[in-house]
């Protein structure tokens, strides 16, 4: 037919008509008594390929034709165009099929694209700095503290002067200045940094100047650099911003620069203002802030220097103290240093969750593709006669395959376009409702890369789902194809569809098992006892900022605020603390040196978190007392220094001995000794799952190193804690109206956010699992429906021969059950092997938890059986008389 130059649509119709004719002829002969083979043979002699061609050619020649352009290039284009039009027509002819296929693909492609757009900036793209791979974080471990504590300024100075691997090193700490002036007072997120900070990152201010190292000294000038965001929002983008004076914490600062709009401060994304540390570089005493462990250190490696090389150099420096660089015992660097690439550090928390979610979405995509392949196979089965005729008439197999692939590609493209819309909504929902703060959030969008990804997988999917049905349908086997019609129960293509369905079921099972494990983890997590009473507890972060607060006034401010808060109606207890458990930023860790230890033997020292609290804190939090007494109002600055320690610290040091009465020292090696007067229960500090529980409590009056400028207020409410927030803020402002009060939340809210990564993964796993179950149900329904349709004759015959209707039901159901059980069985095996990969996200539940495996298997089987029941029910209703008459 190729030489006829007939439009493909017309060609298809001619073929269809001829096929029908031959069908009728075959029927007639068989009814007349001829055998199958004789009938076939006879028909083929009646229909001669050449005659058809010849005759049709005559017809075509006689009648006027639209001219067809024959130049080769344009012919190819015309061919493709024709294929597309033909494909589109074929799709539109079957709107039901097309709709299901397109929606399935849209869901799969949309979900994958959305997840990819979140994962891309986090896992794949480098950080938005020049040569970002050369950026590292530097930290060290202190004894048994779970999370590494901060670095000291003194260590920073030593590294800067002794190293050879780094182009620059910088340190930073959080700073939350209160901006006052013409508009509302506002607390800003900021950082105090060394002058080298932006140099390390490799970004300079877009306006104005960078920090100057000569300004970074004690009593240096008050200079700030602001973000573009702040400049636009607070200063209306005024052009005279550089050189402008602003008031932060009561002092006057000069703006010397504005960072570019595209700048991302990945260490602390919401920072709007930077100023200099201005610590005393002469490192006057081991007690001062120059040796406090509260700085983050980052560095830029020299070109060509690898991270391992730098690590070993710094470790060498750590192990070889020099007299020019004296170190206190709590910052002696005995355990060496840790170097991590900045990229890894930033994404570390969220990586396991993202990778798990990536795996889940891949499963979903595969399930969607399998479903569509099945649909295409079924559709191909219905067009068998047409294809066979074409081949008999000399159609090129390749041309047919190309046509079929065009159809499936078209399907995929439509699904992909719809999928992009789904992805756009998905990404917005992801960013808005994500329980975790996704790093690089600004970069998560459906942009060029994401679009290219979507296009890529769409094309692959289009070809992938189409190739199998195309190859299968175009196999030239005229006899079988033409004559089979719709009468046999098991066609050759059925086994492929069954295999695909089994694959679908098993993949869905794996997905659901993942969801189930996460779900159980989360329920167990929420059941953990944090060590204190979390309900009806309101927490707020209060600052005493501004230069008019010296240590004395800071103490007074906090004491008066606490008193005011205690008088608010509805408050049953209130207290202050320098750190809050489960607040997400515990970084105030110190070395604990016990008097009974040999002096200066750091190996015996422990690490612990320091809590400078008001008396009554432990009662307000309902932390149980185990031995001795709690802190009280008598433990003032002039009274003997006392501390209360946590159970685990007591046990690790004293085992069964009595800890009360022993003395210890926090931090500096010539600091004051404090006597242990009590032991309290352990409290979950950094997270619900972290095991670090060492804590040392003292009253803030007795903490003499420095006065904490910012404290947490915890308030136990009689009723709903959240409702008290406005009244409590008012109470504090009645003492001093300029002090910012931030991070107001109930403890229960904090608990929820501490499990954020897992919740994030769980929500997505549940969503994908839900969609997967629907797809599997549809897939099973489709396959069983086809089995019933194609076996209509056989079922009719059985019924006529006396089979009961319920035998028919069980016959069909048995087929469905065998498919389901095969899929579930394989799925369980695959899950057994694969769920290990989720281990970092799981808590308290084994990756092979039998309860989850069993429950999910049961659920999926039940849903599948339901999907099988509908076609089985239809099979039951077949009227044998109708069937046989039709024959």
């Amino acid at each position, binding site marked *: 037919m190729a030489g006829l130059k007939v439009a493909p649509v017309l060609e298809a119709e001619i073929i269809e008509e001829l096929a*029908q*004719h031959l069908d009728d002829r075959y029927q007639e002969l068989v009814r007349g008594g001829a055998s199958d083979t004789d009938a076939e043979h006879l028909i083929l002699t009646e229909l001669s390929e050449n005659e058809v061609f010849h005759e*049709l050619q005559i*017809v075509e020649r006689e009648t006027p034709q639209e001219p067809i352009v024959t130049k080769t290039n344009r012919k190819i284009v015309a061919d493709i165009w024709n294929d597309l039009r033909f494909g589109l027509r074929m799709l539109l002819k079957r709107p039901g099929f097309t709709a299901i296929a397109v929606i399935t693909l849209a869901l799969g492609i949309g979900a994958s694209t959305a997840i990819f757009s979140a994962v891309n900036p986090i896992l794949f793209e480098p950080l938005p700095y020049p040569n970002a791979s050369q950026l590292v974080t530097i930290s060290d471990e202190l004894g048994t503290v779970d999370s590494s504590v901060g670095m000291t300024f003194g260590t920073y100075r030593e590294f800067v002067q002794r190293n050879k691997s780094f182009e620059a090193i910088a340190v930073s700490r959080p700073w939350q200045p209160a901006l006052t002036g013409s508009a509302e007072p506002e607390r800003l997120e900021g950082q105090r940094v060394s002058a080298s900070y932006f140099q390390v990152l490799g970004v300079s201010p877009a306006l104005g100047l960078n920090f100057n190292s000569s300004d970074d000294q004690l009593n240096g000038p008050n200079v700030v650099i602001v973000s573009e965001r702040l400049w636009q929002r607070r200063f209306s983008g005024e052009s005279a911003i550089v050189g402008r004076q602003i008031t932060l914490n009561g002092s006057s600062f000069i703006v010397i620069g504005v960072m570019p709009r595209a700048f991302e401060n990945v260490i602390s994304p919401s920072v709007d203002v930077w100023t200099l540390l201005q610590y005393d570089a002469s490192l006057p005493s081991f007690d001062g802030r120059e040796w406090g462990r509260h700085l983050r250190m980052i560095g830029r490696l020299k070109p060509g220097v690898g991270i391992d090389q730098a690590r070993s150099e710094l470790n060498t420096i750590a192990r070889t103290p020099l007299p020019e660089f004296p170190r206190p015992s709590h910052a002696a660097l005995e355990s060496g240093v840790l170097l991590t690439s900045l990229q890894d550090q930033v994404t570390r928390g969220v990586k396991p969750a993202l990778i798990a979610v990536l795996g889940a979405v891949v499963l979903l995509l595969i399930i969607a593709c399998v479903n569509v392949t099945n649909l295409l196979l079924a559709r191909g089965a219905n067009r068998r006669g047409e294809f066979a005729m074409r081949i008999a008439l000399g159609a090129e197999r390749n041309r047919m395959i190309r046509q079929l692939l065009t159809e499936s590609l078209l399907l995929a493209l439509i699904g992909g376009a719809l999928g992009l819309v789904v992805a756009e909504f998905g990404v917005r929902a992801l960013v808005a409702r994500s329980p975790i703060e996704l790093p690089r959030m600004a970069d998560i969008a459906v942009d060029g890369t994401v679009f290219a990804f979507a296009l890529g997988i769409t094309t692959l999917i289009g070809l992938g789902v189409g190739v199998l049905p195309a190859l299968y349908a175009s196999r030239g086997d005229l006899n079988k194809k033409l004559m089979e019609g719709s009468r046999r129960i098991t066609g050759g293509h059925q086994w492929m569809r069954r295999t695909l369905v089994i694959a679908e079921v098993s993949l869905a099972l794996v997905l659901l098992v993942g969801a189930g494990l996460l779900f159980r983890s989360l329920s167990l997590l929420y059941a953990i006892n944090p060590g204190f009473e979390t309900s009806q507890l309101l927490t707020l972060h209060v600052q005493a900022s501004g230069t008019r607060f010296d240590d004395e006034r800071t103490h007074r401010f906090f004491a008066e605020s606490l008193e005011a808060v205690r008088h608010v109606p509805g408050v049953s207890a209130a207290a202050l603390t320098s750190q809050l458990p489960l607040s997400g930023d515990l970084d105030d860790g110190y070395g604990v040196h016990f008097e009974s230890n040999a002096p200066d033997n750091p190996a015996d020292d422990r690490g612990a978190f320091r809590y400078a609290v008001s008396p009554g804190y432990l009662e307000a939090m309902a932390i149980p007392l185990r031995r001795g007494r709690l802190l009280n109002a008598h433990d003032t600055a002039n009274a003997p220094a006392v501390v209360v320690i946590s159970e685990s610290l007591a046990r690790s040091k004293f085992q069964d001995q009595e800890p009360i009465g022993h003395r210890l020292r926090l931090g500096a090696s010539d600091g004051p000794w404090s006597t242990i007067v009590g032991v309290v229960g352990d409290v979950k500090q950094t997270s619900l799952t972290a095991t670090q529980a060492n804590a040392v409590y003292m009253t803030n009056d007795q903490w003499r190193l420095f006065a904490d400028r910012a404290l947490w207020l915890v308030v136990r409410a009689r009723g709903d804690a959240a409702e008290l927030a406005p009244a409590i803020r008012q109470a504090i402002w009645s003492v001093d109206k300029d002090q910012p009060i931030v991070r107001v939340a109930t403890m229960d809210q904090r608990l929820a956010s501490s499990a954020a990564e897992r919740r994030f993964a769980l929500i997505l796993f549940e969503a994908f699992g839900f969609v997967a179950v629907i797809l599997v149900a549809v897939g099973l329904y489709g396959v069983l429906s086809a089995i019933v349709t194609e076996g209509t004759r056989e079922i009719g015959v059985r019924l006529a021969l006396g089979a009961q209707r319920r035998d028919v039901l069980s016959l069909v159901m048995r087929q469905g059950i065998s498919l389901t059980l095969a899929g579930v069985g394989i799925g369980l095996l695959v899950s057994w092997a694969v769920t290990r990969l989720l281990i970092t996200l799981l808590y308290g539940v084994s990756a092979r938890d039998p309860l989850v495996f069993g429950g999910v298997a049961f659920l999926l089987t039940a849903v599948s059986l339901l999907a099988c029941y509908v076609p089985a029910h239809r099979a039951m209703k077949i009227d044998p008389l109708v069937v046989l008459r039709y024959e």
Partner: protein
Amino acid sequence: MTDIDMRMLDRELKKGSAELLILTLVETRARHGYEISKLIEFRSGGVVRFNVASLYALLYRLEKRGWLKGRWVEKAGERRRRFYRLTAEGKRVLAAQRDTWQEFVKAINRITRVENA
């Protein structure tokens, strides 16, 4: 009749009468290709038989000329079939051809009967 006769009959006579046969058969109602071929075979007592290719080629030719109109019809439980019916133009052509044919046959009969008599 012998094979040679059949072929002669096919070529010569059928060329002229084929169109007439088809147009006649769809005059009263629309029919599909297979039905038309069966009817021709049946009503001619097996004398006239179309081969598949020629029949359909002819149907397409008539459709292209606008004398027939084809339409796909789908009945429940069956594959769809293409039914052909007569157009207005086709009716006109049929009437004309019928007259011509009748005149022609009368003329031939007159000659042959006279000779044999």
